[in-house]
């Protein structure tokens, strides 16, 4: 938009411009950068295009044609129907499981991270520094490294092969907690809390009516991270669950893919692809819907008011 407005002015001034030709509002166009961006865009979109094209093929077309061209028939709808009905509709069950893990796991993680991050940022209590150091340390430990100890622990509790084995570990998000802590320091002024206290509001009321609203962009950011992490969670459910009835989509699709090998091989590559396409649709939708919160969350606090 700014370039469109600025362009005519350049023309009238010709080359006698005293002001620099390029400003923040009308940056210099760089061919190299545009090409680089184009490259990144292609890098991100080609796999998606590939997935869409191949999800529309029958298995026979998959085996005969070129990967980035459509096949002889457009079987997307057929594939979708078969994906949902294959093996008594197990895909729908996996979708439901994934939603369950996301709602309880990621939802719970967001709630806990928000409460704890806010508490750490706004209340002084003994051991706060030690507590905070532990959380910072926890961010550095990758979840994959904890998968085996977690498995053995849950096995002692006889919780493996139950939804709890996925939900409970998902509830902990040290990084989310840290984000909320930073965000609270930036966007919830002490004066506001003091004013509310003088007016006689209790701490819970202050949190839910004032702070939570100020924190909304931060909460959405944390929720988004948690939802994506839980939705894509693969390794933990892989080792925790042996009953396909509790699989999330990630592990379930892998099982379908593995079906193409061994003594009783029954390849269903077309359903694996269509299933993958269906699996990313909700997460793409969540991202698009929540991104404006996210953007405002990222930029808030970047300029001191």
């Amino acid at each position, binding site marked *: 938009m700014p370039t469109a407005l600025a362009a005519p002015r350049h023309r009238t001034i010709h080359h006698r411009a005293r002001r620099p030709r390029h400003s923040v509002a009308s940056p210099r166009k760089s061919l190299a950068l545009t090409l680089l961006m184009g490259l990144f865009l292609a890098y991100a979109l080609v796999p998606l295009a590939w997935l869409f094209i191949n999800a529309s093929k029958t298995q026979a077309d998959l085996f005969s044609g070129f990967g980035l061209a459509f096949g002889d028939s457009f079987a997307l709808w057929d594939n979708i129907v078969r994906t949902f009905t294959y093996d008594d509709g197990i895909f729908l069950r996996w979708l439901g499981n994934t939603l369950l893990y996301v709602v309880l796991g990621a939802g719970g993680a967001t709630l806990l991270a928000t409460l704890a991050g806010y508490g750490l940022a706004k209340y002084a209590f003994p051991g706060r520094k030690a507590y905070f150091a532990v959380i910072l340390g926890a961010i550095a430990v990758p979840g994959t490294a904890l998968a085996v100890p977690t498995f053995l622990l849950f096995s002692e509790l006889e919780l493996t092969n139950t939804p709890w084995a996925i939900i409970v570990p998902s509830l902990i998000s040290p990084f989310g907690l840290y984000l909320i802590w930073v965000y609270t320091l930036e966007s919830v002024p002490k004066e506001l809390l003091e004013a509310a206290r003088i007016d006689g509001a209790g701490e819970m009321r202050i949190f839910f009516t004032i702070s939570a609203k100020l924190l909304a962009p931060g909460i959405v950011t944390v929720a988004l991270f948690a939802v994506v992490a839980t939705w894509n969670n693969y390794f933990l459910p892989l080792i925790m669950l*042996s009953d396909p009835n509790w699989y999330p989509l990630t592990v379930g699709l892998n*099982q379908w893919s*593995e079906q193409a*090998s061994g003594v009783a091989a029954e390849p269903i590559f077309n359903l694996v692809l269509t299933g993958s396409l269906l699996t990313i649709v909700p997460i793409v939708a969540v991202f698009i819907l929540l991104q404006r919160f996210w953007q405002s969350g990222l930029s808030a606090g970047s300029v001191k008011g």
Partner: protein
Amino acid sequence: MSTLKRRTVIGTVPAALATGALAACGDDTEPAAAGSPEDLDAALERGGKLTYWTWTPSGEAQAAAFTAQYPNVEVEVVNAGTATDEYTALQNAVAAGSGAPDVAQIEYYALQQFVLSDALVDLGQYGLADLEPQYTASTWAAVDLGGVYGLPQDSGPMVMLYNQAVFDEFGLTVPATWDEYVAAAEALHTADPNRFLTNDAGDPGFAQPLIWQAGGRPYTVDGTNVGIDLQDEGTRRWADLWNRMLQPGLLAPIPTWSDDWWKALSNGTVASLISGSWMPGILEGSVPEGAGNWRVAPVPSYDGTPVTAENGGSAQSVLKQSADPALAAAFLRWLNSSPESIAVFLENGGFPSTTAELASPEFTGTAPDYFGGQKINEVCVAASENVATGFQYLPFQVYANSVFPDTVGAAYTEQGDLNAGLEAWQESLEGYGEAQGFQVN
């Protein structure tokens, strides 16, 4: 892609957990050790609930037929993953001490590993050793590991499947010896550089049966004493032969079971396969483009004497964690020895391990259109009678197979010397075996 993924999982989790499993052998509280044959019928009468892990397509139908016959028993069929995925889950459950099913499908090559983790019930106590005459010698040998640790379900005597249309187009004859085989591979690839007689990108589940067929007996297992010699005469014979295929580039570098592989079978890029006798059913079910073109022949031989090996195949075993091992054993007896159950298994395209079914005229007489009306089972049954004896797998074969790509696999990618790759594999296996507490020599 799938090899890498599977290897990552196997390489990390079970390696860590299997250590625990072997170390923890003694402290599991074992169920009442002594059972008797009478227990089985009593258990069926009494009834109960069983969990059965399998990836066999006929699993559900067999369980349904069983419940129809024994209404007091409820069987929950769970597909806990195909092959190595299931072993990961199973090994984890064994290590953790809970979560294992009552009955599980285990491939012959992996059985030894679960026996040594003390995970399986010796079915001899229930008199199931008496079933031996029902099975082919090679499948019984695979479950009779110092105790009867499973009952054979299917078998996979190796045969050669070839695409007659491609053979006709390029004027190839069916090779009877390995020398003719290499010559045919050369002729085809020279005539059309895009075509290959076969594919092999380094697959332990393929190399070992070929070593077996060549007379190699690289592993000797006696309790915790393990001998590994991947340079014995037979193993070298195979490696020298396969070098003649690998080094000039006569093997299509396509991993078996990959999407590319299915594609190559469909469009005739790969003109023949050496595989278990279960493969014809899979071709017919999943490569519809090949209808009418494929045929089955014996595996080429080194000296004209027909010899073959077992490739794949599974047994079902009862887990020690089972709350009712007698009931589990009774279900297993029905599953893998009753004609009703085996009939369901055959309907789903399985290749049996029981001599009665293999010998029945109904079985040998089938002449599917897919194979141009050839009586393919005659070839397969003949193969099942020519399986060489005496081949043993390692007690950590699942791990061994998972590191095959790192060692022998390197020779495949460089088109180098397979013998060097085998030596590297041997070194890796010796180190692992010793770390696991085996006496390796």
